[in-house]
């Protein structure tokens, strides 16, 4: 027992050092605390956690626990260690995402949109940059469970708030407004978490899978150990649930942002060579299936003619995707080895079931957006010409005058006009800059300016809104 006690002490000293390092690390914030308000909240949470752990550990050192408690303390220390390593990663990413690399105006607009949708909750979407060439939402479930476990044992240990969401974007996209429209897809994952869809889908898919095995006689045909059957259930449910999450996020982003999201996705997709157009992967539905869904909602929300006018080639491609049926697609993953002979049959069934889920997902997105959801195309149609004209003149399109009447375009209008302008309308602006059209450097400078004007217009809209000027 004395050995265990010594082990507790040494473990405790080690944890104290880790807490000290973590606190020091957060306090050394290189950006002099110029993060977004939400990031500050996250860092505060981490500081509180490390403070509570320090107090707990000191108490253990000063008042060694009774012998029978020692074992449980050791187990707690193991969990604390796990918690500290999570916190370290989060703090590092939050601090690395310094003020130079956060798309501020877009991040503030994301929080504004999420706040509108999730009233009366006040979501805090922390936007951080990462070194991966991808956008993703941090999975905080394990972290939340851990904080719950620790808060039951450590006095004043804060549970990670339900409303915190961490969205990651690639560092190389810092300062870009257009391509960062992909963040709305990641916000979609956050909204998905607030629905009960996943739980419902999990139960439904397992239930239906059981019936499918019986009806098709698969149960009798395949002789596999119980563990392999469990692996198969896991394989099917994990894949289908991941696709459901992704397609929810896609539909959400397309409905909120319109073509700007689709075009932003296309921008990032060009950079990822491994994407397979017709095959569903381990994590995502096939690109062409996603485009089919994008196309359907772009039509539904009134963007068809606009796309046809501005980007006929994109429009043609989307139209083609709309015609695809689910049996045009395949799954690129392999079922567990015992079930190879039924893989084709199983994959076909999974795709069919997934398509049924999409209908429910579409309904849930509409519910989340609410009855008062104003299709962004209405504001777009009212102000598009003016926004484009302001951009052509190198002016931030946040206050527009039309025959003496003042208009402030909605950020979604600004993003869509900005995208069409970036793809097809830069020439008049380059002319105004007296730029040699073949000079790539000059074009890049111009694109940077365009992105900064769009960001400024979005920021201005929010300032005007808060000042009661809209």
């Amino acid at each position, binding site marked *: 027992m004395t050995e265990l006690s010594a082990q507790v002490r040494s473990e405790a000293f080690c944890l104290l050092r880790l807490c000290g390092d973590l606190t020091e690390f957060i306090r050394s914030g290189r950006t002099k605390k110029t993060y977004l*308000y939400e990031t500050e909240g996250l860092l505060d949470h981490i500081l509180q956690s490390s403070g509570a752990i320090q107090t707990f550990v000191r108490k253990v050192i000063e008042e060694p626990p009774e012998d029978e408690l020692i074992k449980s303390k050791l187990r707690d220390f193991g969990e604390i260690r796990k918690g500290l390593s999570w916190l370290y990663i989060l703090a590092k990413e939050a601090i690395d995402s310094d003020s130079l690399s956060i798309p501020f105006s877009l991040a*503030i607009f994301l929080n504004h949109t999420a706040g509108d949708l999730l009233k009366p909750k006040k979501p805090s979407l922390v936007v951080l940059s990462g070194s991966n060439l991808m956008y993703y939402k941090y999975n905080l479930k394990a972290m939340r469970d851990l904080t719950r476990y620790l808060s039951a044992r450590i006095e004043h240990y804060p549970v990670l708030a339900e409303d915190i969401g961490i969205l990651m974007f690639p560092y190389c996209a810092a300062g870009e407004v257009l391509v960062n429209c992909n963040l709305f897809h990641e916000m979609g994952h956050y909204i998905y978490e607030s629905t009960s869809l996943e739980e419902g889908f999990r139960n439904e898919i397992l239930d239906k899978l059981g019936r499918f095995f019986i009806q098709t006689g698969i149960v009798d045909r395949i002789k596999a150990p119980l563990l392999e059957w469990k692996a198969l259930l896991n394989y099917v449910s994990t894949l289908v649930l991941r696709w459901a999450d992704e397609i929810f996020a896609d539909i959400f982003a397309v409905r909120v942002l319109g073509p700007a999201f689709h075009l932003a996705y296309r921008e990032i997709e060009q950079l990822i060579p491994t994407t397979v157009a017709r095959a569903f992967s381990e994590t995502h539905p096939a690109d062409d299936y996603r485009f089919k869904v994008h196309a359907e909602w772009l039509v539904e929300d009134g963007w068809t003619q606009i796309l046809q006018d501005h980007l006929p080639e994109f429009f043609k491609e989307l139209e083609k995707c709309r015609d695809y049926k689910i049996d045009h697609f395949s799954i690129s993953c392999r079922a567990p080895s015992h079930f190879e002979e039924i893989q084709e049959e199983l994959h076909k069934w999974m795709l069919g079931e997934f398509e049924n889920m999409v209908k429910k997902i579409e309904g849930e997105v509409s519910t989340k957006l609410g009855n008062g959801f104003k299709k962004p195309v209405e504001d777009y149609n009212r102000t598009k010409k003016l926004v484009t004209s302001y951009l052509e003149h190198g002016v931030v399109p946040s206050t527009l005058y039309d025959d003496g009447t003042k208009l402030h375009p909605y950020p979604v209008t600004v993003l869509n006009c900005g995208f069409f302008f970036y793809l097809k309308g830069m020439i008049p602006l380059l002319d105004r800059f007296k730029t040699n059209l073949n000079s790539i450097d000059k074009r890049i400078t111009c694109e940077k*300016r365009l992105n*900064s004007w769009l960001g400024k217009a979005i920021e201005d809209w929010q300032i005007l809104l808060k000042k009661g000027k809209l």
Partner: protein
Amino acid sequence: MSVLSRSKIIERLKKAIDDPQSLVITPLLDEDFDYDAVDIRLGCYFRLPAISSITCIEPFRESHLKGGEEYYPELVHKPYPYGLGEETVDKKEKGTIVLQPQHAVLASTLEYIKLPADVSGEILTKSSWARYFISIASAPWIHPLYRGCLTLEITNLGNVPVKLTVGEPIAQLVLIKLEGESENQDIIKGSYAGAILPEAPTFKR
């Protein structure tokens, strides 16, 4: 040359963007401005100059001609204190920057402006700030057709630190009508044209 009055400024603000006489000031949070000048607010971005790491600035050294970012190692964003009635003291405090005595910082204006082809502008420190020995611009002249957020060279010439708050009026823009000929083509000229952030200087030989 004559100074544009409030009514003339409003008249020009309402003109279509493709009219060479059009003026843009956005966002214009207070339309009830003075008879002869528009209040300009402190923006969210600051570029802090290096203090101890540079022995001497040499603008015309070959390696520095393209831009002097190394003299301004830090770009800082201070958020606009959002939220009517809902802002906390903590949130408000985040939108401030303290300028030490005899220190200087580059800051952008909250307003993005575009001047008409026949109007020049002059940016002046608001007199209340001047009485705290804050000076906001040492290069106050703005050419016709300039567009962008203005870069302010804010200096604390006093003996005590001064706290500056994002979104508060700090300067006045006086607009002056040119006599005689003016540029009739809407072109975007100048290294800093279209800037949103305060930009480090560039020099040409």
